[in-house]
């Protein structure tokens, strides 16, 4: 199905998220829509898939102008969208999710649905257990279910929003293969929304680049990376690898010592992990979503109780200390959900500063306000001391979280510190983190982005199925090798 969108405009308040965008997608091709955060990709795709109406502009399918009142409308004419946060119902089974809102009969034909589900899944090379509860699946499997559902409902245009975040290399391979087959043998139009150039290189036939709500260029793949980057950012960014010299692990000044640690998990339990981290060292934890790395991080923070093993902080046994006691000893933890877990939506920056500042019965609001203003300046937060944190942008929320971290940290535990941030903001975050490292803090972080882990870690621990493998010198390990370890392939 050919898709033509012309002169789409969408504004939110004063922000023109889409500013007169026109582009064409042809049947049987795989496209990438590239752009940094806030470039307008997501808005455009939500308009194309019926989640939001445009302020003005037109969508034409195979020469017919269409108007969508809802995503179901869009799917009815063949446009299906796979969201980054898969829109399924976690509390129900795979089969129930497949049947949900399908057909008009009072009693669903479960048998037929089961057959249809397995046929469609087989065709795509997916392996789905129809009776499993969705909340026990990996993100990759949930994506597979959603794709199966969309295709079985007749989707001829597939929009995928950042589908490779949080899934395994194997799952990515399976996904890409099935997308290629869909496009090239069944004439499905595939639109991949991404900011990962490697995915675009691996999969797409052509690419359209957005910046600040406008189309800044398009190209047929393969294209030189530099050209794409220039279209995305308007300037040639310095190549990565700019970080100062790596820290060689000497086995001195050990900050954290993990011994024979086992942590129970919902799907995967962490078993028998040993790890020493010393002052000024950055350790990246790699692995598929739910392989045990989060369990280790949270156990180190005191948020998850280990079933066996010990944790030592500068030689002191902290296995049985709770989170707040460990914070008192110089441990800090920042979660991935900035507004869900990190900051208190509804409170101002001043109130946050007062909340984390020194003890004492009464709050000195003037002092807190001054401190907040200092931090706003020092961390270049776009907002005022009286701004509620939920009104800040994602990047500024991350800045606020950094600003709230106490001084003189011994151990900094971070969950996806650059999640959802554009390249500039992510680099800013890492400059802050590396400054902490220079002050002597040890840093352990999780990231779904392997590039980030390779770039910033002194050592890497790869998790698979609850087992940890230590890589002493990540710069000497190839991407492919890491990918194999993450996917659990023995080398």
């Amino acid at each position, binding site marked *: 199905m050919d898709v033509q969108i012309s002169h789409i405009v969408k504004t939110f*308040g004063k922000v023109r998220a889409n500013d007169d965008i026109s582009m064409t997608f042809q049947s049987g091709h795989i496209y990438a829509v590239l752009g940094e955060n806030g470039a307008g990709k997501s808005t455009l795709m939500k308009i194309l898939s019926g989640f939001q109406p445009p302020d003005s502009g037109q969508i034409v399918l195979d020469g017919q102008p269409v108007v969508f009142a809802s995503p179901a409308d869009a799917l009815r004419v063949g446009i299906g969208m796979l969201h980054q946060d898969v829109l399924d119902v976690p509390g129900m089974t795979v089969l129930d999710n497949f049947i949900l809102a399908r057909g008009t009969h009072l009693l669903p034909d479960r048998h037929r649905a089961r057959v249809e589900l397995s046929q469609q899944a087989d065709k795509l090379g997916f392996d789905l257990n129809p009776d499993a509860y969705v909340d026990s699946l990996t993100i990759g499997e949930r994506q597979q279910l959603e794709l199966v559902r969309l295709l079985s409902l007749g989707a001829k245009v597939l929009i995928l929003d950042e589908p490779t975040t949080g899934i395994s290399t194997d799952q990515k391979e399976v996904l890409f293969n099935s997308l290629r087959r869909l496009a090239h043998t069944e004439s499905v139009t595939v639109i991949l929304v991404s900011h990962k150039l490697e995915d675009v290189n691996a999969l797409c036939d052509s690419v359209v680049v957005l910046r600040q709500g406008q189309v800044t260029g398009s190209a047929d793949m393969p294209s030189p990376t530099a050209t794409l980057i220039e279209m995305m950012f308007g300037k040639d960014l310095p190549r990565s690898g700019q970080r100062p010299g790596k820290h060689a692990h000497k086995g001195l000044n050990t900050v954290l010592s993990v011994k024979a640690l086992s942590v129970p998990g919902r799907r995967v339990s962490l078993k028998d992990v040993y790890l020493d981290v010393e002052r000024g060292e950055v350790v990246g934890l790699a692995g598929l979503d739910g392989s045990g790395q989060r369990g280790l991080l949270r156990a180190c923070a005191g948020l998850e109780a280990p079933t066996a093993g010990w944790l030592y902080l500068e030689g002191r046994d902290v296995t049985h200390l709770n989170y707040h006691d460990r*914070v008192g000893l110089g441990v800090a*933890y920042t979660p991935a959900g900035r507004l869900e877990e990190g900051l*208190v939506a509804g409170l101002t920056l001043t*109130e946050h500063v007062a*909340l*984390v500042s020194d003890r004492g019965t*009464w709050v000195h609001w003037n002092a807190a306000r001054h401190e907040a203003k200092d931090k706003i300046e020092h961390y270049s937060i776009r907002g005022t001391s009286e701004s509620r944190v939920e009104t800040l942008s994602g990047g500024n929320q991350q800045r606020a979280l950094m600003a709230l971290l106490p001084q003189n940290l011994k151990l900094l535990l971070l969950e996806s510190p650059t999640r959802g941030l554009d390249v500039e903001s992510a680099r800013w975050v890492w400059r802050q983190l590396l400054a902490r490292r220079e002050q002597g803090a040890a840093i352990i972080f999780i990231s779904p982005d392997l590039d980030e882990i390779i770039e910033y870690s002194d050592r890497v621990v790869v998790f698979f199925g609850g087992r940890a493998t230590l890589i002493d010198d990540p710069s000497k390990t190839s991407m492919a090798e890491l990918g194999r370890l993450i996917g659990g392939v023995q080398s």
Partner: protein
Amino acid sequence: MTPLQGSANTSQHSNRWLAQALVLIVGLLIIVGGIVAVLLLSGKDPASALNLFLQGSLGDATQRSLVVMRGLPILLAASGLLLTFSAGLWNIGIEGQMMFGAIFATIIARSVGNDTSGWIALALELILAAIGGALWALVAGVLKTKGRVNEIFGGVALNFIASNIALYILDGPWKYGARQQTAPFNAPALLPLVPDSGALSLPGIVIAIAGFVLVYLILKRSRWGLQLRAMGHSQRSAFLLGVRTERNVLLAMMACGALGGIGGALQILSPDPVSKGYLFPDSSGGIGFLALLVVLLANYQAAWVPLISLFFSLVPVGMLNLQTQIGLDPTLGRVFEEALVFIVVLANGAAARARHTMGEPD
């Protein structure tokens, strides 16, 4: 729930006010119309009923003092609830906590002789009342933090348990004659009255106002108050930012229970026609629920609570006169208060909706 926000933005909110006023006016008209209809249907003159109501509540110093004294337990309980609401807790168990306060105060009050010092007796009674209320609130708190039992359902069950415990005690160990009540307390056990003031008692007023002021300061100025507010917005974030949330849930519940307990004690220790000066089965008398309504009506804004508490005590006092004079069921007063809160909450919602459609930020 948006507990205890700063004052509203002063920018143009005309539509919002319009929507709010519209719902309020229509709502009040419906309530008043309903009451007038009820009066007319039962053959009573609405105008003279209003007159009787006002006389009964504000007519003379005795009546006015009664309004003030009946307002104190409401104010204390509502102050306590400001703390729990701030922390995002629905302490529906306040009713049982007040009952426990009254029971604990009675432990002292019933053994106070005529020659005991009134000040010591009163101090002991109120301290015990605070302990009793706090303990009962602690049960609900522990059920929530350790057992993950929602405080609403735990609280409701604990309310019924408290009232049945009271029934059991009053039907057994503390039974006075044939009635379900304790013996009337001796004078030193009761609140001392200001001479010739009707029912006015200075210590009672001071304690209630002190309780409210303390809560106000805690919420606006103290670190603990800030922590509670943070928990009210996001328990999870507050925890990770260093707030010991579990402990604070228990502390907030206990503080609320203590204030409610003292309120429950004032309820039975005032020597006035309503409180009687002895423990009886329904000593908490729905005051806890009334206090919940007060806070809802105030939209969680502490500053409004004293005024609304007074208003909520004025209605039943006035209704008492209507009951004795023309035999009107005082339940009508309750219906009026509840309908009022209902209308105001809807009006707040209408304002929020108007604001939403105007595209203003929430």
